[in-house]
C-alpha cells in the first residue's frame, strides 16, 4: 500500500509544481502585459466636467444657459439575457422609448451604452427608484434656452454632445466650449472614482451679443403678427445701430423653439434668412441711384423729371410706374418711388457709375457679419448687362441682395456716409466676467457727409404726406425710409410672378439723429402687395415700441421746450 501512497503524493506534488509554473508564467513572464491591462481598467482618465459658456444679450441677460440633467446609462454585461426582456419593457414604460430599440442595446456586447439622454427630472426619479441592476443614472449638462424661440436664428443650437451646430453656437463654438482637462484617478468596476476631491468644473467663455433681448422680442412679436395678418409665407426683420453696425435684433417669422430643434419639420426655418436669402430689392434700391446722382453732382434736389408718360422704354422693355405721375422733382421721384424718374436718373449716371456705386454700397459682397451662412448676393458687372439692364438695375431688379445688405446701405445715409460692418458678438468674457475680447466697429466712407445729409432729408419725405409710406410715420419722431415692392422671380415660368411679391420697408429713426435702422421684409403677403401698406405699418409698430424701450425722446421736445419746465 506504500506504493499507492507514494503515487498519490507524486500526483499531488505534480499539481503543486504545475500551479507554481502557471503562477510564474502569469505573474513573472506576463507581468507587464497584465499590469497594463490592470491599468486600463482600473485607472480612469476622465475629462473634468465642463460647462459651455453662456450666451448673453448686450445687457448681460441670459439667452443660453446650462442645466444638469439625468441620463440613463446601462451596463449590458450586468443584465442576464433572461431578464433583458423584462428590463426593456420596464425602461420602455418609464422613458417612452421603443422596447425593441432598448432590447438591442441591452443585448449588445459592450459594457456601456446610453438608454436615454437628458431625461426629465420625473423620469430620472423613477429610474432611480426602480433600482434595476445594470441601469444607472449619470449627470449630463444640457444646453437650455430659457427664452425658447427668442433669437432662435441667431443663437442656433447644439447637438446632444453640446457641440454647436447652428448659428452663433456653431460660430463661436471654440470660445464657448470649455477646454478639456483630464483627471487621472483609480476607479472601481462600477466606474466610481476613488478620489473625487480633485474634480472641478471647467467653464467655457461667455459671449456677449449686440442683441438686445427686449428689442428682439418687440421685433419678433410684430413680425409674427404681420405674417399672420398678411398670411405671408415668411418675414424677416433686422434692427441695427446705423453708426456702429451692431445688430440689435434680427428675426424671422416663423421661428422655432431652440429647446426642441429636433421637432422642426421644415429645415428652412432654421436658416437666418436676413443673411442667407437674397431677393430683388426693388424700390428700396433706388436710393443707390439717387445717392449716386447727388454725390456725382448730376442733380440738385429740385431738379425736375417728366414722368407724365407713366412709362419709359429701355432696351425695348416698357417699364411703368405704379401710379401715373406728373412732372416730379428729384426729391419727389424718391418720395413717390417713381420708376420712370429713377430710370431717367440712372440713364444719366450710366452703367459704369451705377455698378460702381452698387459695389461701393456693399452689394455683391458679404457684409462680413460674424455668423455662418451669409451669402454675397449678385450684382452683375456692366459687361454682362443687356439693353434693358440699366433700367431694371435702377429700380432694383436684376440684382439680388440680402436684407442686411439693404439695411447697411440705408445705414450709410443714416450715419453720414459710412459703410459699417455689421456684427453680433460684442464681447467675449472669461467665466469670471473679465473681458477677453471686444469687437471694435469698422466702417469705411462711401458717401460724402453732405450727400448723406441731403438724401436723409429726402427720405424723411417718404413717410410724410405725399410719400409712399405714410403708414411708417410715428408720432414724435421723424422717420426716414423707403418702401419696396418687388415681384418675385418665378423659376418655373422664368418670369416675374404675378401673385408673389416681396414687400419691404427700410428706414431709420429718428431721422436727424438716428438711433436705429430697421428693415422689414414680408414675403408673399396676401391681400395687399405694396411695401407702404404691408411692411410700413410693421415698421411703425416696431419702431414705436423700440423707441419707447430705448427711451428716445420725441424730436419736437426741444422745440416745444417742455422738457425742462414741466419736470
Amino acid at each position, binding site marked *: *500500500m*506504500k506504493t*499507492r*501512497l507514494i503515487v*498519490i*503524493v507524486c500526483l*499531488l506534488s505534480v*499539481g*503543486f509544481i*504545475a*500551479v*507554481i509554473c*502557471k*503562477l*510564474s508564467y*502569469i*505573474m*513573472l513572464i*506576463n*507581468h507587464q*502585459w*497584465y*499590469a497594463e*491591462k*490592470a491599468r486600463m*481598467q*482600473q485607472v480612469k482618465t476622465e475629462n473634468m466636467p465642463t460647462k459651455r459658456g453662456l450666451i448673453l444679450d448686450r445687457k448681460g441677460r441670459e439667452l443660453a444657459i446650462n442645466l444638469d440633467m439625468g441620463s440613463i446609462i446601462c451596463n449590458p*454585461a450586468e443584465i442576464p439575457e433572461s431578464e433583458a426582456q423584462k428590463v426593456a419593457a420596464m425602461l420602455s414604460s418609464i422613458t417612452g422609448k421603443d422596447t425593441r430599440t432598448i432590447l438591442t442595446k441591452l443585448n449588445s*456586447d459592450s*459594457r456601456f451604452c446610453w438608454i436615454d439622454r437628458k431625461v426629465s427630472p420625473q423620469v430620472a426619479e423613477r429610474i432611480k427608484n426602480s433600482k434595476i441592476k445594470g441601469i444607472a443614472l449619470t449627470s449630463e449638462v444640457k444646453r437650455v434656452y430659457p427664452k425658447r424661440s427668442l433669437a432662435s436664428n441667431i443663437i442656433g443650437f447644439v447637438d446632444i454632445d453640446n457641440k454647436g451646430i447652428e448659428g452663433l453656437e456653431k460660430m463661436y463654438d471654440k470660445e464657448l466650449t470649455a477646454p478639456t482637462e483630464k483627471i487621472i484617478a*483609480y*476607479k*472601481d*468596476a*462600477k466606474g*466610481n472614482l*476613488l478620489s473625487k476631491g480633485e474634480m472641478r468644473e471647467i467653464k467655457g467663455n461667455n459671449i456677449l451679443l449686440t442683441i438686445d433681448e427686449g428689442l428682439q422680442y418687440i421685433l419678433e412679436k410684430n413680425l409674427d403678427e404681420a405674417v399672420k395678418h398678411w398670411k405671408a409665407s415668411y418675414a424677416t426683420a433686422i434692427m441695427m445701430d446705423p453708426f456702429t453696425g451692431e445688430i440689435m435684433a434680427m428675426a424671422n417669422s416663423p421661428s422655432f423653439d431652440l429647446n426642441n430643434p429636433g421637432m422642426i419639420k421644415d429645415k428652412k426655418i432654421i436658416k437666418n434668412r436676413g443673411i442667407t436669402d437674397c431677393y430683388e430689392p426693388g424700390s428700396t434700391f433706388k436710393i443707390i441711384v439717387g445717392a449716386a446722382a447727388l454725390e456725382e453732382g448730376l442733380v440738385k434736389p429740385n431738379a425736375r423729371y417728366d414722368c407724365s408718360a407713366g412709362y419709359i422704354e429701355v432696351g425695348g422693355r416698357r417699364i411703368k410706374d405704379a401710379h401715373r405721375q406728373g412732372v416730379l422733382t428729384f426729391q419727389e421721384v424718391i418720395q413717390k418711388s417713381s420708376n420712370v424718374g429713377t430710370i431717367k436718373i440712372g440713364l444719366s449716371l450710366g452703367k459704369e457709375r451705377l455698378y460702381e456705386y452698387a459695389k461701393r454700397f456693399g452689394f455683391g459682397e458679404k457684409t462680413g457679419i460674424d455668423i455662418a451662412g451669409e451669402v454675397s448676393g449678385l450684382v452683375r458687372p456692366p459687361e454682362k448687362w443687356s439693353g434693358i439692364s440699366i433700367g431694371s438695375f435702377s429700380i432694383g431688379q436684376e440684382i439680388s441682395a440680402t436684407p442686411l445688405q439693404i439695411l447697411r446701405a440705408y445705414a450709410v445715409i443714416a450715419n453720414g456716409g459710412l459703410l459699417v460692418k455689421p456684427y453680433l458678438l460684442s464681447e467675449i468674457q472669461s467665466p469670471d466676467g473679465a473681458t477677453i475680447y471686444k469687437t471694435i466697429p469698422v466702417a469705411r466712407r462711401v458717401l460724402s457727409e453732405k450727400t448723406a445729409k441731403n438724401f436723409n432729408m429726402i427720405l424723411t419725405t417718404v413717410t410724410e404726406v405725399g410719400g409712399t409710406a405714410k403708414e411708417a410715420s410715428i408720432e414724435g419722431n421723424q422717420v426716414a425710409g423707403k418702401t419696396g415692392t418687388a415681384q418675385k422671380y418665378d423659376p418655373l415660368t422664368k418670369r416675374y410672378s404675378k401673385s408673389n411679391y416681396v414687400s419691404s420697408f427700410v428706414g431709420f429713426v429718428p431721422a436727424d439723429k438716428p438711433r436705429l435702422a430697421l428693415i422689414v421684409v414680408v414675403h408673399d403677403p396676401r391681400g395687399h402687395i405694396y411695401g407702404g401698406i404691408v411692411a410700413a405699418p410693421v415698421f411703425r409698430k416696431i419702431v414705436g415700441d423700440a423707441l419707447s424701450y430705448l427711451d428716445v425722446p420725441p424730436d419736437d421736445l426741444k422745440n416745444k421746450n417742455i422738457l425742462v419746465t414741466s419736470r
Partner: protein
Amino acid sequence: MNGQCDRQILFIVFALVIIGLLAVYSSTSVITPELAEKQNGKAVQFFFLKKQLYALFLGVLLLLLLSRVNLRILKICALPVLVISLIVLLLVFTSLGISVKGATRWINLTLFSFQPSELVKLAMILFLAWYMSREAFKKDNFIYFIIPIGIMGIFQVIFLMQPDFGASISLAILTISMLLLGGVRLRFIGGVSFIALIAFTALLISEPYRLRRVTAFIDPWEDPLRSGFQLIQSYIALGSGGLTGVGIGESKQKLAFLPEVHTDFIFSLIGEEAGFFGASIVIILFCLLFYRGILIASKMKDPFAYYIACGTVLMITIQAIINFSVVTGLAPTKGLPLPFVSYGGSSLLISMMAIGLLINVSRYQESNALSQAEKIIDDKTLVNRVNHAKNIRNWQRGLGYTRCKAILCDQELFKKTL
C-alpha cells in the same frame, strides 16, 4: 496518551489562518456601494472579518476537542456522523436553505449560515476510515468496494441538485483516493472512474452552455465579458502583482472587478498584493502541511488512524490544489474555497476540525508507540533500533545524559528491546 501534538502542523495552520484573515480584511474592508447596499448601509469595514473571527474561535475549540477525543469514540461515531451529514445536507432543500446566485448550498441556523457540503467531506473521511479499517473489509471484493461508491453517489446526486460542482469534484477525488489507499483493486476504481467520466461528459454535452462554461478556462478571452470574465480578472490581479506585489491592502482588483474575491478567488488577491513571493509562501505552506501530514500518516500502524490522517491531509490538499488551479486557469471555474484562507465559516470550521483529527492521530501514534512496540516490531525496525541504541550508548560515553526526554525514552526502549 500524553504524546506531543505536532507543533509544525499547528504552526503552518496558524500561518495560513493569519494570512487568510489579512486577505479577508483587505478584500472586504473597502466599502463598495454595492456591498453597502447589501448590508443595508451598515458599516461593513469589519463585518466579514468579525464573522471570520467567530468561525475561527469556534474552529479552534473544535480543533482542541477533536485532537483529544479517543479514536475508539471516533470509530463509533463514524457511521452516525455520515447519516447526520446526509440529513443536514438534505436540509438545504427545506425552508432552512439559502439560495445565492441560483445555488442552494447553505442552511440558515439563525446565528450563522452553514455549508453542509463541507461537513460531508469530513464525514466521508471518518466513514471510509472506519469502513476500511474493519476486519471484515475485503479489499478484493467488489461488493465492499461498491458500497462506499454508492454512498458517494447519493451525495453526488444531492450536490448536483444544489448545484455544487466544487464539492462534487473534491468529494469524488477524495473518495477515490482513499479507496485507492485502502487497497481496493485498481480495475474496480478504473471501471467506476471510466463510467463516471462518460456520465460526466454526457452531462456536459447535453447542455452546451455548461460545456462552454467548463471550457471557458482554456481560452477566457473568447468571451471576456461573460464566461471568461472572472478568470481574466483573476489573471489581471495575479499578473499585476508581479514579483513583489502592489502592496498589502493596495489591491485594485478587489474593487468589484474580481467577483468572489474574498472567497474562492482570495488567492488572486494575495498574488496581487504580495506578489509572486507572497503567493509562493501560501503554496509552500500547503506543501509543507501536505508532506508533514503524509509523514504522520506513513508512520501510522493502526489502519483507522492511517486512513484518518491520509483523508484529512488529502482533503485539505486536494481542495487547495483545485482552488489554485481554478484561480490560475488550470482547471474550470467552480466554487471551492481555499482552506483556512478564504472567507467562509463552514470551510474554516471543517478544515480546523480536520487538523484536529490529524493532530489527534499524530498523538495517538506517538503515545502508543511503546505499548505497541512488542506487537508489531518487524525485523527492519528492530535492527534500526539496536543500531540507534548503540549510537546512544556511544554517545553517552562521550557527552553524558544532557540531551532530552526522547533519549531517555529511547533508553527504556533499548532496555526493553534487548
